[in-house]
């Protein structure tokens, strides 16, 4: 029977990719963020996941406004990164797990989540940077992936409550999966930041701490705010917390926090990294 080991949550600020390319991980600006990844790597080495279900948002690489799915599930044998237009390196490809993808899709639709299914899908820095952070020396990623993209670009966005329920439906699917995979759940993005408008540079530590404190024990607390209220509290791009909320749902009812790092600023963002471990994971 497949095991859900836990969840890894991290910001996916593009500038992190630039810092990696330039080898700046230990400079004063970057060290407080990169140091927060060391416990993540140790935990992953202990847990040895071989599949990752990744909740993220596309930033205009695969999806444009011509067709914007609210929830999109990858079902491809593999996923490529590509030129995003502003100078990031093109990142390594990901191997997919189509059988698990379709099992998740079957469960989600049965649970009345009418998802978009993608047999071809480019994945952007929101997938690649968390992998670069957690397996910095890997020649190929040690896990196969099921990417689940949530629209955080064009409103109306799905509600936080709906995103948590989506994750819970993924948990139901993973719990019923007959394979022997060791499954890692990843949620990327956030925390508070706003790139656009006269409020650019907005950061809200109080709300970020509320999110981090609630994530493991009280995820329902994160669903009390409307999307508009989350934008107000977390910033226009801080709404990426929806990816975290969905990923939390996929861990099941019981999980505990084993690592947290919070650092301001990385570029315009309050950057956070967390690990939540489930009771089914080896201690």
């Amino acid at each position, binding site marked *: 029977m497949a095991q859900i080991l836990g969840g890894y949550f991290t910001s996916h600020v*593009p*500038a992190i990719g630039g810092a990696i390319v330039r080898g700046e991980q230990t400079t004063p600006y970057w060290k407080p963020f990169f140091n927060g990844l060391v416990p993540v790597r140790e935990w992953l080495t202990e847990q040895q996941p071989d599949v990752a279900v990744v909740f993220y948002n596309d*930033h*205009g*690489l695969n999806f*444009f*406004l*011509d067709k914007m799915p609210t929830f999109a599930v990858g079902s491809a044998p593999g996923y490529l990164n*590509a*030129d*995003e*237009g*502003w*100078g990031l390196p093109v990142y390594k490809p990901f191997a997919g797990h189509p059988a698990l993808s379709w099992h998740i899709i079957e469960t989600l639709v049965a649970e009345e989540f009418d998802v978009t299914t993608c047999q071809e899908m480019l994945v952007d820095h929101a997938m690649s940077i968390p992998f670069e952070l957690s397996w910095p020396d890997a020649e190929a990623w040690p896990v196969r992936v099921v990417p689940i993209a949530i629209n955080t*670009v*064009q*409103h*109306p966005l799905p509600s936080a409550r709906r995103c948590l329920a989506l994750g819970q439906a993924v948990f139901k699917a993973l719990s019923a999966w007959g394979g022997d995979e060791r499954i890692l759940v990843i949620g990327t993005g956030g925390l508070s930041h*706003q*790139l*656009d*408008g*006269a*409020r*650019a*540079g*907005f*950061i809200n*530590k109080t709300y970020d701490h509320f999110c981090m404190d609630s994530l493991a024990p009280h995820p329902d607390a994160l669903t009390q705010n409307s999307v*508009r209220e989350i*934008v*107000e509290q977390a910033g*226009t*791009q801080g709404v990426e917390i929806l990816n975290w909320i969905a990923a939390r749902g996929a861990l099941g009812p019981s999980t505990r926090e084993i690592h947290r790092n*919070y*650092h*301001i*600023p990385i*570029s*315009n963002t*309050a950057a956070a990294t967390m690990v939540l471990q489930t009771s089914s994971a080896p201690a």
Partner: protein
Amino acid sequence: MVDSAQHSPEFIPGTTVFDGAMAMKGYALNAMCYSFNKAENRKAFRDDESAYCARYALTPEQRTAVASRNVLQMIAAGGNIYYLAKLAGIFGLNVQDVGAQQTGMSVDAFKNMLLAHGAEV
């Protein structure tokens, strides 16, 4: 379509919620920016900006905003920052340069404002 004052894109100060109305308004500009995922399109824009903008049928408001490199005007014209970032990249501007421009700060002042947030932790 939402139209009540409570759901106005201006409801949160200094913030534009990119909703259906904005997505329709900004479609041409965002479509042009999306094309910049391809290097040959970035080159074509650099080689002849006016012709490239005309190809995407930018509105006069969008064309003026692009010509003046004014990000707040681009947003008012329906631009979405995720796509505009690709255009900003052509101009050699990162998100901190863009943040500084939108807030009327120098880039150093904008960066220091962010560092000050961190110092308060």
